[in-house]
């Protein structure tokens, strides 16, 4: 049996309300909240970035896995906001969690599904017998341009998953990936903010790939929506995942637990992975969950996980994502937010 041995998440303590951003730009706050189904989002502290988030998430995953980090053979971390353009984030994370030096590390990048990719590759290492354990992390502190629609949703956070074959808490039943060249959202080198194709990001991008990966997996694994206790879809805003789920035949009730976006925002590479983490926090032995990621450019990875008897004990061993999202919160003004996110041009020193 191969699957998730430990999972963990981390979100910063800072928040900004959608209404605060709307007030700044003179947008209709109520309309935005209704249209995007978002209320507030997480903001990284001045001293936080993809690497620090990944470290905390990985430490939480280790708490649930209860294994010696030196047994993990590889670490993969996917993000759209790696702190360095050239120099891996993963190397810092292996040092911070004490994996030793005889490991394989790679950073991934594929818009919002870089985390799910890291998970897929880690799973494949264990499945192929290459390694005993491998960890896949999705973490981001991505930005939206000031005044752009993405500013309402782009947030910070991440989740980590340790894959193995011993003491599995959630078995991988099946996976499927669907990819095409679809330029719906991109950022050129040296540009500070990404750009996107407006409504083109919907049907031809998000929905095409999510639905294709989902349908293919459901068919080849012989599953129907009713077989699942929960379902998680990538959450660029509050509406898209609910609509995709509905088209496939999932209910709002099934999607509720993993639907963390309205209080977290879109943590990009951390989005569907964190939705999955929220589900694993409550999944009961024997129950199944469905998960589909989406990365612009574009592609989707779908997974089916089934909880084992070992999952219940592991759930309480690290903070649960909903507790973190509802726990300590420090709200920022737009000015503080702009300063933290370096949207303001500073003098040379900073």
């Amino acid at each position, binding site marked *: 049996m191969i699957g998730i041995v430990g999972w963990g998440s981390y979100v*910063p*303590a*800072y928040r900004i309300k959608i209404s605060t951003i709307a007030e700044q730009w003179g947008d209709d706050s109520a309309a935005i909240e209704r249209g995007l189904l978002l209320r507030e989002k997480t903001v990284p*502290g*001045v*001293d*936080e*970035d993809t*690497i*620090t988030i990944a*470290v*905390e998430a990985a430490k939480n995953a280790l708490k649930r896995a209860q294994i010696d980090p030196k047994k993990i053979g590889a670490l993969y971390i996917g993000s759209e906001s790696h*702190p*360095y353009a050239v*120099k891996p984030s993963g190397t*810092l994370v292996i*040092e*911070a969690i*004490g994996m030793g030096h005889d490991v394989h590390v790679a950073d991934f990048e594929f818009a919002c599904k870089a985390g799910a990719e890291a998970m897929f590759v880690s799973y494949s290492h264990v499945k192929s017998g290459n390694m005993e354990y491998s960890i896949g992390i999705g973490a981001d502190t991505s930005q939206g341009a000031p005044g752009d629609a993405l500013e309402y949703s782009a947030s910070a956070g991440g989740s980590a998953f340790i894959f193995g074959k011993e003491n599995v808490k959630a078995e991988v039943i099946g996976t499927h990936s669907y990819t095409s060249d679809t330029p719906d959202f991109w950022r050129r080198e040296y540009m500070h903010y990404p750009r996107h194709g407006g409504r083109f990001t919907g049907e031809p991008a998000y929905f095409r790939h999510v639905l294709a990966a989902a349908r293919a997996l459901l068919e080849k694994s012989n599953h129907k929506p009713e077989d699942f206790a929960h379902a998680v879809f990538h959450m660029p805003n509050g509406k898209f995942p609910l609509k995709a789920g509905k088209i496939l035949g999932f209910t709002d009730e099934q999607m509720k637990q993993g639907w963390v976006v309205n209080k977290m925002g879109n943590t990009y590479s951390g989005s569907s992975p964190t939705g999955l983490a929220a589900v694993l926090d409550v999944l009961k032995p024997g129950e199944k969950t469905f998960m589909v990621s989406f990365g612009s450019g574009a592609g989707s990875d779908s997974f089916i996980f089934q909880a084992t008897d070992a999952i219940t004990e592991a759930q309480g061993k690290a903070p649960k994502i909903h507790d973190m999202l509802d726990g*300590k919160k*420090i709200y920022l003004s737009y000015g503080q937010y702009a*300063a933290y996110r370096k949207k303001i041009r*500073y003098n*040379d*020193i*900073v």
Partner: protein
Amino acid sequence: MANSQRYHREIGHRYRLEAQKFDSGYVTLARRYIDPTTGSKNYEDIRLSGEGTILSFTIIYIPAEAYSLEAPYPIAIIETDEGARLTVQVIDCDFKDVKIGARVKLVFRKIREEGHSGILNYGYKAILI
């Protein structure tokens, strides 16, 4: 000005809180050859749990340039549960909650950047628990 050479040597204690416990019971995060009070050279390698108590603190209003974006911020001297003493920035908190005797936990954070193009420096900071 922590360049690559000086930075990479400190990774063990900065990322993993690797410390030493001498046979007198003296615990130090800073790597030493000799116990400064007993002269002993006998120690074992340990890792700090990261939990401790505030002994004293201040709020820094005028920082060195590399930290200017974070000011004002609290700095505290803490004693970890193992007995090691360190100086840390206290973050994600209300200043009024930073007190002598408050309990803290160390977390992994970015400490500073070497300007726009230099390396990033990481290490430990404290949150109130």
